[in-house]
């Protein structure tokens, strides 16, 4: 899932300072699962903003809505009937959702309430870790299913750097050296020889370095 977290409150207040009526839009997908932008968080942000306005002697009217997904235009369209009654839309979706709203409602200010962090996985309640950077050319088949692009601070492809100490990355004692994990796993699988093939220089053009990417399935296209 895409993992995000709420922006500092001041920053959000800054966006909507001059508004009288706003629409806060949550998303019932990834950001609900990572407890950042679901219906519950929409309610809390709404309450917090109204309180902050009240404190300043100002009134703020908030419409709370949580869309099934903000990354699909059909869901985004659900706001079309009433969005124009509001001075701005605050999206609690990931950056994708914010942009979909912005592009759908050209005449409306759209602000993000979250910082979108990464694609990751839950490590139990309340903890998420990064797992994928969407590089467009997956190497997991050669690295025991563990990603050196997302999980190595240097995205090294041919083994650990000299900063790997006792299985931990030199950037922090709390971060596993993914190369240690890869080697341990392949050893366990008796597949360590896989690492004898040298990775060629990685083509980063499909990782976004060649500009915004697009996927088209001709067979599905209407």
């Amino acid at each position, binding site marked *: 899932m895409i993992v995000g977290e709420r922006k500092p409150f001041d920053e959000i207040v800054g966006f909507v300072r001059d508004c009288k009526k706003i629409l806060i839009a949550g998303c019932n997908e990834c950001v609900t699962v990572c407890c950042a932008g679901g*219906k519950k968080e929409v309610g809390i942000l709404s309450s917090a903003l109204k309180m902050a306005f009240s404190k300043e002697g100002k009134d703020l009217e908030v419409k709370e809505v949580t869309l099934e997904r903000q990354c699909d235009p059909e869901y985004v369209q659900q706001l079309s009937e009433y969005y124009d009654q509001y001075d701005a839309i605050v999206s609690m979706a990931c950056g994708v959702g914010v942009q979909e709203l912005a592009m759908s409602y050209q005449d409306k200010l759209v602000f993000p309430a979250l910082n979108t962090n990464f694609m990751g996985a839950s490590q*139990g309640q309340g903890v998420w870790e990064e797992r994928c950077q969407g590089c467009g050319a997956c190497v997991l088949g050669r690295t025991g299913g563990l990603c050196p692009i997302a999980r190595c601070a240097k995205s090294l492809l041919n083994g650990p750097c000299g900063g790997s100490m006792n299985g931990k990355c030199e950037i922090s004692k709390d971060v596993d050296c993914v190369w240690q994990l890869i080697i341990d796993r392949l050893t366990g699988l008796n597949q360590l020889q896989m690492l004898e093939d040298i990775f060629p220089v990685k083509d980063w053009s499909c990782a976004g370095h060649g500009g915004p990417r697009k996927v088209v399935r001709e067979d599905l296209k209407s």
Partner: protein
Amino acid sequence: MVVGGGIGGIQAALDLADSGFYVYLVEKSSSIGGKMSQLDKTFPTNDCSMCILSPKLVECGNHLNIEILTLSEIESVAGEEGDFHVRLIQHPRYIDVDKCIACGTCAEKCPKKLADDYNTGLMKRRAVYIRYPQAVPLKYVVDKENCIYFEKGKCRACEKFCPADAIDFDQKEIERTIDVGAIILACGFQPYDPAISDSYQYGRSPNVVTSLEFERILSASGPYQGHLVRPSDAREPKKIAWLQCVGSRNTRIGNKGYCSSVCCTYAIKQAIVAKEHSDGLLDTAVFYIDIRTHGKDFEKFFNRAKGEMGVRFEKSRINSILPGRDEGNLEITYLNGEGKVAKEDFDMVVLSVGLDIPQESIDLAQKMGIELNHYNFVRTGSFDPLQTSRPGIFVCGAFQGPRDIPETVIQASGSAAAASSLLSGQRHTLTKEKEYPEEVDVTGKEPRIGLFVCHCGTNIAGVIDVTEVTEYASKLPYVLVAEENLFTCSQDTQVKIKENIREHQLNRVVVVSCSTRTHEPLFQNTIREAGLNPYLLSMANIRDQDSWVHQSNKAGATEKAKDLVRMAVASAAKLSPLYRTKLPVVKKVLIVGGGIAGMTAALNAAGQGFEVILVEIEKELGGFARNIQRTLQGDDVREYVANLIEAVNHHEKVEVLTEATLAGFSGTKGNFKTELSVGPTMHHREIAHGALVIATGASEYRPKEYLYGEHESVRTQVELENMLSTEGEKIKGWKNVVMIQCVGSRNNANPNCSRVCCQQAVKNAISLKEINPEANVFVLHKDIRTYGFAEDYYRKAREIGVHFMRYDEHEDPIVERADGKIHVTFMDLALAREITLESDQVILSTGVVAGNTEDLASKLKVPLTSEQFFLEAHVKLRPVDTQSDGIFVCGMAHSPKTIDESISQAMAASARACRLLSQDWIDVGGIVARVDPELCASCLVCVRACPYEVPFINDEGVSEIDISSCQGCGVCAAECPAKAIDLLHFEDTQILAQISALLEAS
């Protein structure tokens, strides 16, 4: 048939009626409730007595399978066990109970005023009256003895004014013969009448009152509306004395040699409550012989009284009580703890009167052919505490021996178990089933709220302006009816509520009174009887949360009451009906612990026809009792335990699993699943059962003090007892034996009294003197706590020359080696000097400590006390239930107790378990979490958050919560990031509506 409508009779009747038997509850007065209804507060929690009793009264009064026969007396009992024919006389009420609406007009118009016995003569009542406002049945009664019409042949004012035409002077005595299978005697006690003796000034000075009179003085419904004043001049007393053992522990005043067991703790309660009534300025002194706070957590209550509350305790002998210097005062002359004469003046004296058996109970026993003991209590055996001398007739409560409310309730349930076992073949043959009217569909309908505000006598109305609150409430949104009642919990108010629901088509009801904890079920039942779903009730607690805690701020309390009412109304408008589903009950009970308690419970439950699994951690059954030879009364414990083991092992319905431990536990009442690891191979077994009884016992404290384990002549009472039977010759050689009491009890590490050690010491001291009359036996103690009939043995021990010496509780005795002997040095309080005893043997009366309960408690999710004993659901009225439905506790796992007490409690636990198992179905649902699958993001947050591991992602890919497993805590609802889960009855909309109602209107 249950004879006696006090708390014991009520509990026995309810347990039996809920277990599938039709019950006749015979009461000689005009209403049930007994002595408990007259009490102000109950120890050690100081709960309001009427408040906890009242729901039971109503439940009894409403029960389809309990027939209450008031004003009734038993004439004779023919037949035998299983087939009795009881002839009884029902005295006329002179009121047609079907017509009486309890409006009180008759009493208002009655010209005759006389002393009100319910209020111990401190108030007047009329000749037509109700005993108390919450009386069940709530029907007036004409007191024939005092009625002017019956005396002089004319008057009939009541008849003339009765709006319901309910007075019927033509009623005659009715004789009835009722066939019953078993009889339970719950006739209770009467307070000792101190007027028999002239030495207390009782009857001469109005300021000398009995403890029961003092309860009425303290009570909000009593003569002074709960203001503590003395009777002579209605002035607030500054100093009050309590005299203990009035009518107890005294063979010179007419065969009152027993200890009444309850007076010490009730005196402490009264002193604390009195101090609370007077802002702590009151000086309270308790004059005592021994303080006997031997009940569960009572010692802590005593310590609190002594410590933070500043109640004085004077160990003393009273010489005289005479009129004091100031008008109305009393001067007490006494020998103090050091044997010196002291004098003190008091404004009031409370006589802590003992528990006595009334003549009519003695007569009844004779009519029934029941043997009584030398103090006129029902004679029972050490191992058969509930069985009278006549088979099929059982006894409970104070008629069996002086005891407090929880012990009475335990015996009441226990006697119900005994009767159920006898009649198990007849279960459900005579009972009727309750049918509620079909529920009115309220979906989509605009709320129509009826609101009922309670005065609770003066409990609420004494502080809050109830009329103003009612008036205010009537203007709130959706409120169609707003009424005030003297007691909203009384039976007539239930009728009124139902009438209002029908007349005004109400679809929500708000009761503004007291705690949901005690009263919600009652009002839920009421609205259900009027066709409303029980969850369409909302309550505002303006008593516990308002009038009781803001007594000195009447205006503030009234404003707060309005806020609370507004919140309750807002919440009510958002209520929706909740439905329950039926689940079958697994008719099997699992009992953990194979000691006397566990085996007794097992045999009773099996006798009632249910399958039993008895789980014992050791290789053998028997528990701690295997270390005990005899009871205080001299009965053979070993033989008894051996017989029990034999019976349990051979009962076809009991499966015994030894060396078995509980590995896992899940489910809800009626449908538990327990995983066991059994036998030396620890093989895994999974057992489905409907109820569970905890009977894991307790342990003996292992002393680290007094040279125990270091010197061969220092041993425990249990070790001594084992020697008594086998090493008599050796014991004959002992010249000086010193016993030390309270080893491991009543100290900082274990603040409670272990209850059994004083009896054990007395028992062994007598044995030592019997083996060698020349031996000197010294018992060093803090107080000797031989409560009840055990006092006889304490007296006997003193008579045969055992020396009882009191040591300073702040200074433990010192035990030292000295030339092969042992020196025991202590501060003797009577002589006020240090004494050293040279002794051959030192016997330590070691306390009872809880077993290793933590693991079991956490698996069963049952709370423990701070001393690690299992905590009951309510100290007074639910002494064997735990907070988890379907799990019960008995024996030493609950608190230290004697064998007969353990047996009674085991029977009670069996009664409560079998009450559940006798149902074919239980309802589940109600307040549980519900998932809206449309909103669910399948995020797993609820799955991870639930402490009971209930939610799971189902085949549709959304979270599902099983209603029979959901405990209703609401954690999942609070955590759900999609707001897809709501805890029914505590939905977000309801909580937010309360917040809005509270804050937006202020």
